[in-house]
C-alpha cells in the first residue's frame, strides 16, 4: 500500500524523465509499427489520386514551427503525390512564420522530382489580412497576389495562365494549426463551392470532424498519425512514420501514469476512510 501512497507524491521530474526516454529511445532504436490508413485520410489521398493531370491544387500554409512535426511530413508526402501525378501545387501562406516551412518543403520535393518553378509549381508567399484574401480569391487572385514570393509578376508564369479564382483551382488543402480553416470553409467552401481537404494538428482535429461528416471537407488528416498514414499511402515512409513509435510509447506511458495515479488516489481515499472510522 505504501508504495502507492509514495507514488501519489512522486516528483514530477521523474515523470519528465520517463516521457523524455520514451520519446527519444524509439527515435534511436526505430522499432517498426504498422500504419493502417483511416477513412478520413484515405479520402484525401483518393481524391488527389483521381484528379486529372495538370489540375491545380492550392496549398495553404496555416501553421508555424511549433506544429512542424505534425504538418511538415504531411506537406512533403502530399507534394510527392502531386508531383508524381503531374498535378500543379500553388502555395499560399496565411501564417507568416510558416512561409519558410512551406518554401523549404516545396523546393525540397521539387528538386527530388525535377519539377520546374513557374511551370509545375509556384509559391505565392504571404499576404496580410487572410479573411479578405480568402474572400477575394473567389473573384480574382491577382487582386491579392500580383507577384509570387520573389516579387515576380504572376502573369509571367505559365502555371498561372487561366488561373483567376476558385473555379480554376481543383482542390484546396489547408494545413492548419489554428482556426484559419474556418474561414476557408465559410468563404472558399460555403460561398464559392471550393473543394477543401484539411490537415489539422491532433489537438484541433476533433473540431473539424463535423465538417467532414457534413461533406464540407472531402477528408481530414489529423496530427502526426494522419501524416504517417499519408506517408504510408504515398509509399514513402518518412519522419511521421518514424515518430509513430515515440507517440505510441509516450501515450502508453501517460496511460500507465494515469492508472497508477488513480490507484494511489483510491488507496489514499480508503486509508482516509479507515482513519475517519476509527
Amino acid at each position: 500500500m505504501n508504495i502507492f501512497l509514495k507514488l501519489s507524491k512522486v516528483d514530477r521530474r521523474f515523470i519528465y524523465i520517463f516521457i523524455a526516454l520514451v520519446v527519444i529511445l524509439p527515435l534511436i532504436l526505430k522499432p517498426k509499427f504498422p500504419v493502417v490508413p483511416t477513412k478520413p485520410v484515405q479520402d484525401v489521398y483518393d481524391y488527389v489520386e483521381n484528379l486529372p493531370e495538370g489540375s491545380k491544387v492550392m496549398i495553404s500554409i496555416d501553421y508555424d514551427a511549433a506544429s512542424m512535426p505534425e504538418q511538415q511530413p504531411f506537406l512533403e508526402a502530399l507534394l510527392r503525390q502531386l508531383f508524381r501525378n503531374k498535378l500543379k501545387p500553388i502555395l499560399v501562406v496565411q501564417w507568416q512564420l510558416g512561409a519558410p516551412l512551406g518554401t523549404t518543403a516545396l523546393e525540397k520535393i521539387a528538386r527530388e522530382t525535377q519539377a520546374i518553378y513557374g511551370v509545375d509549381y509556384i509559391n505565392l508567399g504571404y499576404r496580410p489580412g487572410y479573411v479578405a484574401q480568402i474572400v477575394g480569391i473567389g473573384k480574382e487572385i491577382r487582386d491579392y497576389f500580383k507577384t509570387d514570393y520573389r516579387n515576380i509578376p504572376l502573369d509571367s508564369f505559365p502555371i498561372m495562365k487561366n488561373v483567376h479564382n476558385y473555379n480554376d483551382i481543383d482542390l484546396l488543402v489547408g494545413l492548419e494549426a489554428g482556426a484559419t480553416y474556418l474561414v476557408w470553409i465559410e468563404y472558399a467552401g460555403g460561398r464559392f463551392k471550393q473543394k477543401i481537404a484539411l490537415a489539422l494538428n491532433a489537438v484541433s482535429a476533433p473540431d473539424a470532424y463535423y465538417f467532414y461528416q457534413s461533406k464540407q471537407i472531402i477528408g481530414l488528416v489529423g496530427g502526426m498519425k494522419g501524416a504517417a498514414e499519408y506517408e504510408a499511402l504515398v509509399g514513402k515512409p518518412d519522419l511521421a512514420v518514424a515518430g509513430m513509435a515515440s507517440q505510441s510509447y509516450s501515450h502508453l506511458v501517460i496511460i500507465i501514469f494515469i492508472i497508477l495515479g488513480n490507484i494511489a488516489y483510491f488507496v489514499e481515499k480508503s486509508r482516509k476512510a479507515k482513519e475517519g472510522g476509527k
Partner: protein
Amino acid sequence: MLKGKGIPVFITFIVGTIMIFSFFIPHKPFGDLEKISLNWYSIIAGFTMLLGVDSLIGMHYRKITRRTGNWGYSIVLIAGFTGTVVIGIIETIRLGTAFNEASYFTYIYNYFIVPLQSTMFSLLAFFIASAAYRAFRARNFDATLLLITAIIVMLGRVPLGEQISPNLPKFTEWIMQVPQMAAKRGIGLGISLGALGVSIRILLGIERSYLS
C-alpha cells in the same frame, strides 16, 4: 448629427450592411463595394502589424529605461528584433527574397525560430503527462467515463492500438465520429448562434465594447 462614438458605429453599420448584401447579391454595385472594402481590410491588416511592433518595442523600451523586473530579456528581444529586420532587408536587396535558402534570414529562422517554437510546443508533452497523472482521477461517474474514453482514444489514435486489437482504432473512430462529434456540433452551433447575435448587436450599435 453624428458625433463622438456615433461616427464609428455608423461606419460599422454601413460597411457591415454592404458586406451582408454583397454576400447574397455579388453583382454591381455591391460586388464592387465589397472588393473595395476587402482591399481596405488588407491594407489595414498590414498596418496593424506596425501597431503591434510599436506596442512591443515601446513596452520593452520602457522596461529597459525603468529597469523593471527581467529588463535584461527586453534587451535581447529588441536586439533580436532589430537584427532580424536589418538582415531581412539586406537579404531581400541581395537575393531578391529574404526566404532564399542561402540567406542569413533563413538561417535565423531555421536555427533560432524553429528550435525555440518547437521547444515551447514540445514542453506540452511533459506538462500533459504530469497534469494527467495528478489530476485525471475517477472521482465520480462522469470523470470515470471521461477517463475510460480518453484511454481508448489515446491507444486507438496510435499504431500501438492496432497492435492490441484491430477493432480498437475502429472503435476510436466511432467515438470521434459519433459521441465526440455530437457534443462538438452542439458547442459549434451554440458558438455560431452567439457570434451571430453579437454581430447583429455590433451592427446595430448596441454592443460598443470594441470601441473602448
